[in-house]
C-alpha cells in the first residue's frame, strides 16, 4: 500500500464524441502522484488538462468520455467501481477546487451550509454537528469571524474569501488528493499568494497530495515538486520543477518559458524582443499528424511531420516527447 502511488493514470484517452466523428481530446496521458506529493499539469486552454482532471474525479460528461486507459486510486481502478463507491470517493477522498468560485458555489445557499453538507454526506454527521464543524473549517482557512461568515451567501464574499470557502469545502473531509484547477487565475497576485500558501500549508499538514492545473508555468514550478507540460492533448514533457526552467527539453516548454517576460529579466538582459511561438494552438479536430507541435516548431524536420514521437526517458531524469530533444 505504501509503495503504490496514490493515483496512477495510464494511457488515458478522452474521446470527444461528436455526432459525426470521434476525436481524441486527450491521448496517451500517463502520470502518477504519490501520497502527499505536489504535481502540476501545465498547458494552454484546450490542451486537455482540465478534462484530464475531470476524468480523475469521474465527472466527465457527454460528449466527453474515457476512451482508453486506466485510472487507479490506491491501486483500484476508479472506472470499475460501482457508482456508489465512486461517489464516496468524490469529495471525500478526492476533492476539487475550481477557477471561479462564484460559479462553483451555490449562490442561494449560505456558505456554512455548503461546507456542512460535506460532513453530513460523507461523515454521517447530523446537521447540528456539521454546522459546528463548518465554523471550524472556515476558521482553518483563516476566514475572519467564521461564526458570522457561515451565514453569508457567496455574493457577500470577496473573490479571495470565496476561494477560501472552496478550499474549506474541498478539505472538509480530509481528502488524500486535492485537485486545484486554476485556483488563483481570477485573483490578484497578493490574494493569489495568500491562497497558494494556505493551500500549500494545509495540504502539507494533512499529507494531502495536490494536483495543480494551471496555464502559469512559473506558479506551478514554484508550488509543485514535479511538472508535466501538456500540448494538444498529450504530455510533451515531465520534469522535476527544479529543472524545468533551467533545462527543459521540449521546444514547446522552451517556447513557453521564452515567450513570457519574467520579472527581473529586463533589468538583467535589457529589453529584448520576446521569442514568439508562431501560429496558434490547434483545435481538437485539427490536431496535426506526427508531433502535434510540429507546425509551430522551429526545429521540426520530416520525421516530426509524419511520426508521433514517444515519451522518452531523459538521462537527467524526466520524460520528453520529441524527436530532437535536447
Amino acid at each position: 500500500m505504501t509503495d503504490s502511488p496514490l493515483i496512477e493514470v495510464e494511457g488515458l484517452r478522452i474521446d470527444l464524441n461528436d455526432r459525426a466523428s470521434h476525436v481524441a481530446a486527450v491521448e496517451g496521458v500517463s502520470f502518477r502522484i504519490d501520497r502527499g506529493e505536489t504535481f502540476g499539469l501545465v498547458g494552454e486552454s484546450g490542451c486537455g488538462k482540465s478534462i484530464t482532471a475531470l476524468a480523475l474525479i469521474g465527472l466527465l460528461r457527454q460528449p466527453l468520455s474515457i476512451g482508453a486507459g486506466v485510472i487507479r486510486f490506491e491501486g483500484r481502478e476508479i472506472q470499475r467501481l460501482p457508482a456508489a463507491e465512486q461517489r464516496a470517493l468524490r469529495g471525500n477522498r478526492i476533492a476539487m477546487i475550481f477557477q471561479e468560485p462564484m460559479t462553483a458555489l451555490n449562490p442561494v445557499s449560505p456558505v456554512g451550509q455548503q461546507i456542512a453538507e460535506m460532513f453530513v454526506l460523507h461523515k454521517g454527521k447530523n446537521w447540528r454537528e456539521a454546522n459546528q464543524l463548518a465554523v471550524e473549517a472556515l476558521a482553518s482557512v483563516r476566514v475572519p469571524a467564521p461564526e458570522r461568515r457561515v451565514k453569508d451567501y457567496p455574493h457577500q464574499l470577496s473573490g479571495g474569501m470565496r476561494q477560501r470557502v472552496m478550499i474549506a469545502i474541498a478539505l472538509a473531509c480530509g481528502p488524500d488528493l486535492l485537485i486545484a484547477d486554476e485556483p488563483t487565475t481570477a485573483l490578484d497576485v497578493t490574494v493569489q499568494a495568500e491562497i497558494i500558501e494556505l493551500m500549500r500549508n494545509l495540504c502539507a499538514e494533512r499529507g494531502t497530495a495536490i494536483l495543480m492545473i494551471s496555464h502559469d508555468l512559473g506558479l506551478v514550478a514554484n508550488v509543485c515538486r514535479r511538472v508535466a507540460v501538456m500540448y494538444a492533448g498529450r504530455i510533451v514533457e515531465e520534469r522535476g520543477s527544479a529543472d524545468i526552467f533551467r533545462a527543459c527539453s521540449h521546444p514547446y516548454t522552451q517556447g513557453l518559458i521564452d515567450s513570457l517576460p519574467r520579472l527581473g529579466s529586463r533589468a538583467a538582459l535589457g529589453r529584448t524582443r520576446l521569442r514568439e511561438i508562431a501560429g496558434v494552438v490547434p483545435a481538437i479536430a485539427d490536431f496535426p499528424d506526427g508531433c502535434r507541435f510540429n507546425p509551430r516548431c522551429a526545429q521540426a524536420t520530416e520525421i516530426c511531420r509524419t511520426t508521433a514521437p514517444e515519451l522518452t526517458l531523459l538521462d537527467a531524469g524526466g520524460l520528453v516527447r520529441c524527436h530532437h530533444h535536447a
Partner: protein
Amino acid sequence: MRAGWSGAITMHEPAARPGDDVILRVEDLAVHFPVGGGLLGGGRRLLRAVDGIDLELKRGECLGLVGESGCGKSTVALSILGLQKPTRGRIVLDGQVVTDRQSVDRKALARIVQIVFQDPYASLNPRQTVRRTLEAPLRLHGVTAKSEIDGRIAAMLRHVGLRPEQAGRYPHEFSGGQRQRIGIARALILNPRIIICDEPVSALDVSIRAQIINLLLELKETLGLSYIMISHDLGVVEHMSDRVAVMYLGRIVETGDWREIFERPAHPYTRTLIAAIPDPLRRAPLATTPGELPNPLNPPDGCAFSPRCLYAEAVCHREPGPSLETRPDGHSVRCWRADEIAGQTALASTESGHP
C-alpha cells in the same frame, strides 16, 4: 465637410510644441460615485474610486499602471477616454483641457486617445465583419471615399500582422490572438497618439502573448505612439513600461522609472506586489500580505495600506498617507516611513534580492 479633418487624421502632426514633451497630463483627478441613499439622500455614501491622482505621460513613452482590481485604474482610463466624468480635477490631452464639458469634442478626443480592451472575444461585434468594424470610425470622422477607406483598412491590417483579404471575415473566424490584432487595428485606425492598453494580453493563450506584446512595442516605435499600460502582470509591465505608477485604493502610492520601481521599490505596497510573484526557479513560500484591498466605501483610517503594511507605525494608522513626494530622480513615494524602509533594504540587499 469640415476642412482639415482628413488631413489631421491621416498623418501625425509633428510634435507641435517643442519642449513640451508631455502629451497627457492628469491633475488631481477624482471620481466619486454616490452609493445607496434614500429618496431624501439619507444614508448616501461616497465611493471614492479615484481620489486625487496626478499622472504625466510623455510622447513616445509607455506608462505602466498597476494595482489590484478595485484600485481605480480602469476608472482612470475611462476618465482619460472621456467616458467617465470626473468629480474633480483636469485632464490635459495634447495641450487641450478635455475635462471641461463645454469645450470638449468627443470626436476630437477619439482622434487622440483610444483603448485596446482585455477580452477580444467580448469587445468585437460578432455580427460585423472586420471591414465594418474598422470602417465605422473612419466614416464617422469624415473619411467617405471608398478608395481611401479600403486603402487605410488594408494598410492597418498589414500593420497589425493580418492580411487585407481577411477584412471580409467575422470575428469568430479568427483565433484569440488574431482578434486582439483586430482590436488593436480598431484602436489605431484613426491614428491616435495615445493608446490605453487595458490588460491587453491577459485573456490570451500564453503562447500567443509574446506575439501581441512584440506587436504593441513595434507599433509604438513605428507609429510614435504613447501607451498607458494597465496590467496586473508585473512581468509584462516591467517589460513594456518606461515609467510605472502604482495605485492603491484610488491613489497613486509610488511612481518612477521602471528600473527604480522594480529594483528599488520604495512603497511597502509595491514591495508586496513584487514579492507576491512566484519565483519559478525555486519552490519557496510566497510572501503573503494579511488582508485584502479595503472596501473603498469604508476606507481605513490613516494610510489606506496601513492595515496590511508590515512597516506601519502609530503615525500610519493615525494620519492619512503623506502627499506624493518626488525625489530628484523623479521617483515619488507616498509613505511616512519610506526613508527608513529604504535604509533597511540597503542593509538587507547585500544578502539577496528577487532573481
